[in-house]
């Protein structure tokens, strides 16, 4: 589904973010990417999101080379990916319903579809009661659940979660990981980056370990080893 073919990203001679990275992610896989800060995890995700171009090598999504997409096709492409960030990135002047509806509106969905899908997806993340609350009235874990709901509402092929538990306590971390697992069980590919040893060890799924912009380990049922 996603295929990195000898990808390097070099900002300047001194700053090499990725070096000769190759790996493939199969459909419906749950892949965790671990590594120290500056190991190249975020750069990797940016390349998948077409926010950045590789210095050399190719990144494929299915059979399309992402970085051959024309600018006009990028928004269409991004609708196939749901993104979740450490800092949630919710719109503070919109309530929970509007934050999720906003993403569907941007994707050009009809009003009726929006009205029926938003409550449904909130139910999936267990936040039905807070549908009319504003982000500042929610806890960190609840905000992250809204962000996940927003990411999955357009039924993307893949969810990218960039340290989604970085700002959360252990209980909320556990719950967010459970939700991601549930989404994966429903058939969506998940790519997760994290620093959290406990998360990785409890998942028991594939782990790619990165160091200095290179893939140093790729284990089928990996553990957090750095």
């Amino acid at each position, binding site marked *: 589904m996603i295929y990195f073919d000898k990808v390097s990203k070099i900002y300047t001679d001194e700053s090499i973010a990725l070096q000769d990275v190759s790996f493939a992610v199969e459909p419906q896989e749950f892949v965790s990417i671990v590594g120290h800060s500056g190991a190249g995890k975020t750069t990797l995700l940016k390349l998948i999101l077409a926010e950045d171009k590789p210095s050399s090598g190719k990144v494929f999504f299915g059979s399309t080379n992402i970085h051959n997409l024309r600018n006009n096709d990028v928004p269409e492409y991004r*609708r196939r990916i749901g993104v979740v960030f450490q800092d949630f*990135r919710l719109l503070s*002047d919109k309530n929970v319903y509007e934050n999720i509806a906003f993403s569907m509106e*941007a*994707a050009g969905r*009809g009003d009726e579809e929006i009205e029926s899908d938003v409550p449904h997806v909130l139910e999936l993340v267990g936040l039905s009661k807070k549908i009319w609350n504003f982000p500042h009235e929610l806890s960190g874990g609840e905000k992250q659940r809204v962000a996940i709901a927003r990411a999955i509402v357009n039924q993307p092929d893949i969810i990218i979660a960039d340290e989604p538990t970085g700002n959360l306590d252990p209980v909320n971390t556990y719950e967010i990981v459970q939700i991601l697992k549930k989404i994966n069980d429903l058939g969506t590919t998940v790519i997760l980056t994290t620093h959290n040893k406990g998360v990785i060890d409890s998942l028991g799924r594939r782990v790619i370990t990165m160091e200095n912009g290179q893939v140093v380990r790729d284990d089928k049922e990996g553990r957090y080893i750095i």
Partner: protein
Amino acid sequence: MLWTTTKRIIRSGFFNFSRNAFVSLSSVLVMVITLSMISSLIFVSAILNASLQEIKNKVDINVYFVTTADESDVVAVQETLRTLPEVAEVTYVSREDALEAFKKLHENDQLILQSLDELGDNPLGATLNIKAKNPSQYEGIALFLQSKQTAEGTSIISDVNYYRNKVTIDKLTNFIASAERLGSILTIILVILSVIITLNTIRLAIYVSREEIAIMRLVGASTFYIRGPFVVVGIIYGIVAGILTLIIFYPVTYWLGGVTSNFFIGMNIFDYYTQNFGQIFLVIMASGIVIGAISSYLAVRKYLSV
């Protein structure tokens, strides 16, 4: 699909406008200044044009005849002049009328009246006053009269005052033309400055929304969908600023109307404003909408890269 998108863009445009009330207020005020500049340009050029027109209308040629000229000969010249296509009007002022007018002009000056009496005879010749259809045709008429003067040997025409007036008229025309040019250049510079200020104010307004733009991009909103609401807000700024400008200019021109009608030759800018309201309305509204839309379009571009 397109209709839904357009509807959403317009709705979120209005939402953004009312939500950022303070930013909207400052953008509108800056735009009112820009539009006032444009309105002033319209009024200044109207005043200058009216003055020029007025001065051109005052231009005429007087043909002075010698005192011995027969009235029939003078009338004959008048008739010939009437046949010329350039001539709009020829007025005959007889020797007696000229004397009357002269006496009236100097009725308080005993010395002049006394010397007139001492002369006994009427020293003034008959005059023909010629108005051309177009100021540029005076030259031709003057040449025609000159050729007549030389052709008939002992001429009954003593003087044609065109060449003396011409210098003054040309000077005035030049003065008005350069005043108009200077005024236009100044106003255009001011308009450009205020457009730049408007652009920056709107850019500031959009800076507030940069996070929202980033999120919209990530959820896969198209460039059109992201930019649309901002352009709508820009257009709303333009419309509101346009209406405010038109309202402000009503009392301003009313107040200035009296001043200008005394100062400039019979031109009241309040009357000009009310009579040409439709045209001014269109120019101001169109400028507001175009400036608002273009400023927003350019300002949001910065946040759309990547």
